[in-house]
């Protein structure tokens, strides 16, 4: 039978494909339905954010960060202002820090909801997507009230936030917490025990701890392997060290763990929001910041736990009001590298399960 000529087929998954969630192209070579080679092609959405930033004042860069991981723009905002504040040793008013924390955790919930919905949609379950969107809509509506935008928030400023919460907003967040808790149960009941779903994600796309570290994975991709690393705990920023929450950790590093950690992490985010809303102080929301922000010369890097992993901003400053060089450490970009390794040897249907679970946002991959 060895004389039979095996023929491989090259299949372009994307740049326009329902499962790539954006303009991502995956050139897979398949033998029958088995993948023998997978080459990721990115860059279709490259806007040169880092280059643009070199000609922008720090405040002007903030809207550009909104467009990176557009599902978690608040967290991106924070990554930038945090680095500038760190470089300038600025003090941020407590109320501003609380507001930032609340919106970041809400944004994390919204982003994870989107992941769960989209992931299950990829696996062929249509309804969870729409269920997940109901709560996401509530979150987006709250963001709309606090900053006037539903997707690109541009809410944070160096030294604080742009607007204080409107009257009654914090009560809404408070009411959202028990509601969200109820919905977790529903979201979990919906598919987490479904035999078909479990068969598709359990033991699929397994990442080992060594691989995860070697590939610089971060966020849920790293934690799913059982490695407890969350910058909110390991290198606390903002007020995370003042609140009580856990870091859920997986054990198998498979797609199911990654899916399930998203659910569990949202519960922890709700816990943080609940505590923060209960203890938020009054006061100003913008600290004493010079009109023209100049970062002292030097190079600075800080990173925070984004919705998809370690989101870092590296600024080289020459003391002017614009960065000399700004580099964004985008978790999706780094995490996506392991895709090739996960895909080779798998079948085409597993491709979708694996790609979806890596959880990328193309705006962030391409920057």
């Amino acid at each position: 039978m060895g004389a039979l000529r095996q023929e491989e087929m090259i299949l372009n998954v994307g740049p326009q494909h329902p499962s790539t969630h954006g303009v991502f192209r995956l050139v897979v070579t398949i033998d029958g339905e088995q993948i023998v080679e997978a080459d990721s092609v990115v860059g279709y959405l490259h806007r040169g954010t880092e280059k643009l930033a070199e000609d922008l004042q720090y405040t002007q860069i903030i809207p550009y960060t909104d467009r990176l991981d557009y599902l978690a723009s608040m967290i991106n905002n924070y990554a930038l202002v945090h680095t500038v504040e760190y470089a300038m040793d600025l003090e941020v008013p407590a109320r501003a820090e609380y507001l930032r924390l609340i919106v970041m955790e809400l944004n994390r919930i919204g982003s994870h909801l989107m992941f769960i919905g989209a992931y299950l949609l990829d696996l062929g379950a249509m309804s969870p997507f729409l269920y997940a969107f109901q709560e996401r809509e509530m979150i987006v509506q709250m963001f709309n009230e606090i900053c006037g935008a539903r997707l690109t928030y541009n809410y944070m400023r160096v030294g604080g936030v742009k607007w204080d919460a409107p009257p009654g907003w914090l009560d809404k967040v408070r009411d959202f917490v028990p509601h969200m808790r109820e919905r977790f149960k529903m979201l979990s009941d919906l598919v987490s025990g479904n035999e078909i779903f479990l068969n598709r994600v359990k033991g699929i796309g397994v990442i080992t701890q060594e691989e995860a570290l070697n590939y610089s994975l971060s966020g849920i991709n790293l934690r799913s392997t059982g490695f407890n690393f969350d910058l909110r705990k390991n290198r606390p920023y903002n007020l995370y060290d003042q609140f009580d929450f856990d870091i859920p950790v997986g054990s198998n590093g498979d797609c199911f763990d990654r899916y399930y950690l998203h659910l569990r992490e949202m519960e922890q985010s709700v816990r943080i929001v609940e505590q923060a809303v209960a203890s938020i102080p009054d006061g100003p929301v913008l600290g004493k910041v010079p009109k023209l922000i100049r970062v002292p010369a030097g190079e600075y890097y800080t990173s925070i736990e984004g919705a998809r992993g370690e989101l870092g901003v590296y600024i080289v400053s020459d003391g002017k009001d614009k960065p000399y060089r700004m580099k964004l450490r985008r978790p999706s970009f780094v995490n996506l590298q392991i895709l090739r390794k996960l895909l080779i040897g798998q079948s085409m249907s597993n491709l979708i399960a694996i790609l979806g679970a890596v959880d990328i946002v193309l705006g962030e991959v391409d920057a």
Partner: protein
Amino acid sequence: MASLWGWHTSALTGISFLGMIIGAVIVLLLILGIVSYLIYFERKVIGWMQGRIGPNRVGPFGLLQSVADILKLLIKEDVIPTNADRALFLLAPVIAFVPSFMVLAVIPFTATHYFTAGLNVGVLYYIALSSITILGIVMGGWASNNKYSLLGGMRSAAQMISYEIPLGLSLLGVIMLSGSLNLNQIVAAQNYGHVWFIIPQIIGFVVFVISGIAELNRTPFDLPEAESELVAGYFTEYSGFRFAFFMLAEYVYVFAISALATTMFLGGWSGPFLPSWLWFAIKVSACIFFLFWVRATMPRIRGDQLMGFAWKVLIPVALFNILLTGAVYEIHL
């Protein structure tokens, strides 16, 4: 009148041939109407299940939505890809579509058996003709000269051939109990026995439902057209009315398989008080609703699991059901 509609019992004459033609046209139009509202019904039902409203813009309550959609598809440009195999590309939707209507000839819609061919091998006829549709799907996938289409076509060929076997085997129990392949007589046998075959044939019914959904290429067995993997599977390259043909064929089969399930397992048109056609409509609607419900609930199964399930679970279970039915039948009688 009796001679016009009586082709199922009397010999073929000129007048009954005319009646046959008229009957076929009536059934065709009726089914087209049913199918277009089936699509509307599906969108509404799934919309409600997902906390949405569903179509509500075209006409009152969106009732004309399907009409508008079909009209749009009919007047769209008929795109034929340059490198497609033109002849087969044009032929494939027809081959897929025609059998879907032909299978309806043997379904007993009412007690009077108007519009029903009293074929002695009705069950076999259904299964045989529905297998021709697979040929249309595979050809469409191949002729499109698109890799997604090819993969979709190959998947559907593998899937539908596999699931045809448990589908046929699951019906054997009913055939053994009723002693006939004629769908009219199967309904009659359920009336004599005063029991729907779903009760003695519950195992067969379960196998039938699962493999029936797989034959329909619907969630959770919608691999051939898994949009998250294969874009649209075998009809990726189709547009306009050729796409509509595939789409209609799919929904006609939704109706047909529900009608078959009703006839084989749920007592067909029989029922107290209400007219027979209404009973039939109610039972078929319930079956169709179940299909929609499953679609809104389930994720998609994976290819190898799908095949394994057919060969390792469904076929043995169906065979066991046949054995059990035969044994009980022998002992009981």
